[in-house]
């Protein structure tokens, strides 16, 4: 068994061992006499771990996963040669445990971003001047890149640069290779169990096995979550983009720890002495959908190839279920008995049937829970079995505006976009901090302070698809370095990115989708949506009012200025091919106000063709 017994209980076990052995001998004699009572004979595992829940109906033999010796009646001997101590899915041993029966899944998970963290590491390298031409993963790994070519990931422990150290000390706990057990609401096991044997907020066992009751750190129960719920995703996705918070209507805005809850900081506490308050949730959450109802197993566990960034691996898009102005969602019928959705949906509340018409992801692969049925499109809750009709936008005038062809759906349909402005990171060489990859403390400690957070309005810029998307600081990092004597080596340094010293915003889908879109006039008339930050206007001038400490003109909450009519972007948009809107685009966006004042309805026929921006001049 995985779960160590408490000493007091063990003593109790030992005392009755002798009696048990005699009893067992007796059973042996009976079986020789033709009784099949031996089948009822229990192992030492189940004898001590009485009440422990089975992982699943298919996973009932303790030793199959855990190894050890179920016939030994001494705790030490019984636990000898167990796989991965309490967690047989730990990456140290997962080849001989989970991987024995699930080799395909293991091969995928080994290369998935949540294991390799290649995106996080690469982006930190890019933004901390740490790029050295090599590709790193949380561990060294021989794998294949997106094109199927062999790829060698170097282990990030060998990234001998501040960027590597930042990842190892600040970010490394959030990957499925490592257990995290000291973070309130942020603890998880390592390996497959990170998602499939969820921890509760406090990482203590609450199941039926008295030997581990209330003990830390353990999964909440020994029941396998073949379909992880939203809390599992929240364990990691509660920082940085915070999508698991925003999705379910939570915002950690200012560490204010109010309103209190039961006389203690509240209302919802997160690791790192942070609190979250309730905000309007994502419409999909309100309808009862889980994270995994949109995200396919390939989004999460990977598809066997190693992608450089999250947006290369994730295969889904809003349009998959909601269609485009011109095209309905794409579908294909299940016409093979071993089709992936049939296998995957076996554990769903409603398994699929051969012949079902499946909706396809942006990559053209089948969802395992989105179907077309009698002309309508349905998302079926994997855990709940609930059918959600997906509203399709095809043929709707308000979605068929030529000027909006480049917009991501969530540019208009985001309710709130968490934005953290000004991240001031200090690296103090006189301090020490745990390097989670190396597993011990090393010299050098990071600490952070911050300027301000906001949810609305939010700026837009071009993303890696050449489409207009919300962006959020990613990051506005100012680096201060102190040597061992406390002397300043660098103060509030802005790193070089894309060739110049500049701050950065990153394209971002906040997962706080609203059925009601941001109003036309609201977006077109407020320059904050274009990246100017909060501001006041005069002819040719947009004056930011919340300023960067390093400048008398530049907004803290934006990335463009306008002076004497000239727009100038002073921050980068991180992804390849991404950029802020240029002067001509800014002018076009603002010129639409001349139309909107009389034609406020987005279904107005004037928006069905390219706008004639100069019409009122003639």
């Amino acid at each position, binding site marked *: 068994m995985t779960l160590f017994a408490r000493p007091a209980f063990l003593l109790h076990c030992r005392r009755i061992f002798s009696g048990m052995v005699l009893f067992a001998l007796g059973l042996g004699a009976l079986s020789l006499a033709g009784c099949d009572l031996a089948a009822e004979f229990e192992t030492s595992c189940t004898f001590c771990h009485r009440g422990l829940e089975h992982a699943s109906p298919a996973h009932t033999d303790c030793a199959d996963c855990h190894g050890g010796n179920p016939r030994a009646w001494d705790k030490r001997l019984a636990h000898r040669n167990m796989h991965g101590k309490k967690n047989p899915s730990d990456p140290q041993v997962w080849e001989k445990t989970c991987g024995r029966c699930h080799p395909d899944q293991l091969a995928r998970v080994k290369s998935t971003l949540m294991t390799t963290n290649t995106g996080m590491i690469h982006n930190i390298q890019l933004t901390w001047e740490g790029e050295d031409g090599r590709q790193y993963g949380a561990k060294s790994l021989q794998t294949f890149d997106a094109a199927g070519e062999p790829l060698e990931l170097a282990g990030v422990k060998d990234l001998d640069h501040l960027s590597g150290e930042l990842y190892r000390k600040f970010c490394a706990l959030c990957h499925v290779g490592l257990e995290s057990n000291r973070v309130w609401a942020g603890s998880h096991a390592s390996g497959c169990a990170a998602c499939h044997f969820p921890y509760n907020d406090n990482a203590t066992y609450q199941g039926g096995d008295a030997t581990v009751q209330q003990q830390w750190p353990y999964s909440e129960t020994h029941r396998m979550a073949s379909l992880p719920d939203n809390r599992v995703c929240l364990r990691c996705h509660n920082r940085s983009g915070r999508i698991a918070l925003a999705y379910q209507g939570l915002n950690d805005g200012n560490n*204010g720890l109010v309103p209190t809850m039961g006389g203690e900081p509240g209302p919802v506490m997160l690791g790192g002495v942070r609190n979250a308050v309730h905000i309007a949730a994502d419409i999909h959450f309100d309808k009862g959908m889980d994270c995994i109802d949109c995200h396919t197993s390939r989004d999460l566990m990977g598809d066997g190839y190693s992608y450089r960034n999250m947006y290369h691996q994730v295969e889904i898009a809003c349009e998959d279920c909601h269609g485009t102005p011109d095209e309905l969602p794409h579908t294909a019928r299940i016409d093979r008995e071993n089709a992936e959705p049939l296998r995957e949906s076996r554990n769903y509340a409603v398994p699929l049937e051969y012949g079902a018409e499946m909706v396809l992801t942006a990559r053209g692969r089948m969802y395992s829970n989105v179907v077309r049925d009698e002309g309508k499109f349905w998302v079926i809750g994997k855990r709940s079995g609930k059918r959600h009709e997906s509203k399709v936008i095809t043929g709707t005038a308000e979605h068929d505006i030529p000027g909006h062809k480049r917009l991501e759906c969530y540019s208009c349909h985001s309710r709130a976009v968490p934005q953290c402005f000004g991240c001031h990171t200090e690296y103090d060489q006189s301090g020490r901090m745990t390097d989670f990859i190396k597993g011990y403390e090393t010299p050098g400690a990071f600490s952070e302070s911050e300027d301000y957070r906001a949810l609305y309005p939010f700026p837009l810029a071009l993303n890696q698809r050449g489409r207009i998307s919300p962006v959020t600081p990613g990051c506005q990092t100012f680096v201060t370095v102190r040597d061992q004597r406390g002397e300043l080596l660098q103060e509030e340094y802005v790193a070089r990115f894309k060739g110049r010293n500049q701050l950065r915003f990153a394209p971002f889908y906040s997962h706080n989708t609203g059925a009601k879109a941001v109003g036309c006039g609201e977006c077109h*008339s407020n320059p904050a949506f274009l990246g100017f930050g909060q501001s006041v206007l005069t002819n*040719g001038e947009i004056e930011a009012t919340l300023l960067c*400490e390093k400048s008398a003109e530049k907004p803290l909450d934006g990335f463009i200025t306008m002076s*004497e009519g000239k*727009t100038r972007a002073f921050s980068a948009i991180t992804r390849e091919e991404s950029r802020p809107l240029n002067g001509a685009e800014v002018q076009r966006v*603002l010129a639409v106000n001349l139309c909107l*004042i*009389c034609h406020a309805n987005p279904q107005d026929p004037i928006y069905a063709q390219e706008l004639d921006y100069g019409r009122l001049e003639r």
Partner: protein
Amino acid sequence: MAVNGQIQVFWLAVVLLLLMVGPVRAAESGVNQQLPVRGAHAGLACADCHSGENQGGQISVCIDCHADQQGVLHEAMAHRRSEQAFAAAAFDKYDPQFFEKNCSSCHVIGCSDCHSGGAHATARPSREDCHRCHRGYFVGADYWGLAPREDSQRYQRGIDVDGEKYLKMRPDVHAEAGLDCGDCHSMASLAAGSPGKGCRDCHQPDSRIIEHRIAAHLERLECYACHAAWGAQEYGSFFLRVADNPMGDIFQVRREPGSEYLRSAYLKRQDAPPLGWNAAGRVSPIRPQFIAYYSDLRVGSKLENVLAAAQWKAYVPHTIRRGTVACDACHDDPRRFLLEAAERRIYLPDKDGMTLPSFWDSEGQTLSNGRFFTPEEFARLSRRSPEYVRSYIEKWKNLVKHVDTSSER
């Protein structure tokens, strides 16, 4: 206030000492050379102030000559009646000493509270003198481009003035031009309890500006309804009475030494503030002052997150700029008039036990010196009358044509 109180005691001691020594002997022994008199009093003889008749302490000494200005010692900065009334109404039932415990550090007792140079270097109060009280959330800091930061230590960084950390904001155009507080708020105005110079004492609306040609704007709007570029706003001011409960340390907020209370805000903003009607019946910026919550976190107590007040105030942000927000930021934005539609809510304070469904919904809130907009009034101002459309188009045409389309980045 505490620091000024000490300074005042110091000066009182100096005066008393000099009185004991006697002005004549002081002059003879050359004390006046060790205490050179600078500033406004440079031309005075020692005995003008240090005569035997002036036994009543520093204030009476000053007032002997400046009787016409003693009003300042009886006006709002000294009695702070409205703050006391607010504290009493909101908190008396929970803690009758609330005002003394939380609000008493800022009030004027004597001349040297503002004239910090003292009697021997009397000068107009400097911006630092004003800032000692007009700090943080209170009007004055905003003039210099300072907005309060979130309370948690994580956000307490950046510009430091008098031990308080600020966000860097666009300063008032008058501050940029070199004007100090006293240039508008003269001694005479303070003594008379008047707000000092108004905008129109120096400026007349220029009718070449589109917005200035709109009669309703000139009749009904304060200039600063449009020209205040931003305003510090605090939504949900929590007064946490932790006393000696060690749990108070978890909050990681600044705490005045010996104070029973911690303060932590639910949300701070510093964008264009909401609008309402002020006491003069004109449209003015308004802000929470305060949406206050009381939580008694002393061991054994059970009272928490009680909405003690949901009070707004029409006020004058000292953040004047030539530019303004666009027409749409008022005419089309119900949130700005505390008329946010339920489906537009982002924050849901009532879901966390904070009583109010939205800060931007006037229902259940009060405006201490004016009133909120009604839905009908908002509908009227958002109506697209031909005049509005004409002006709107002219305004945006101007803005659009000034954008240089050649700038690539």
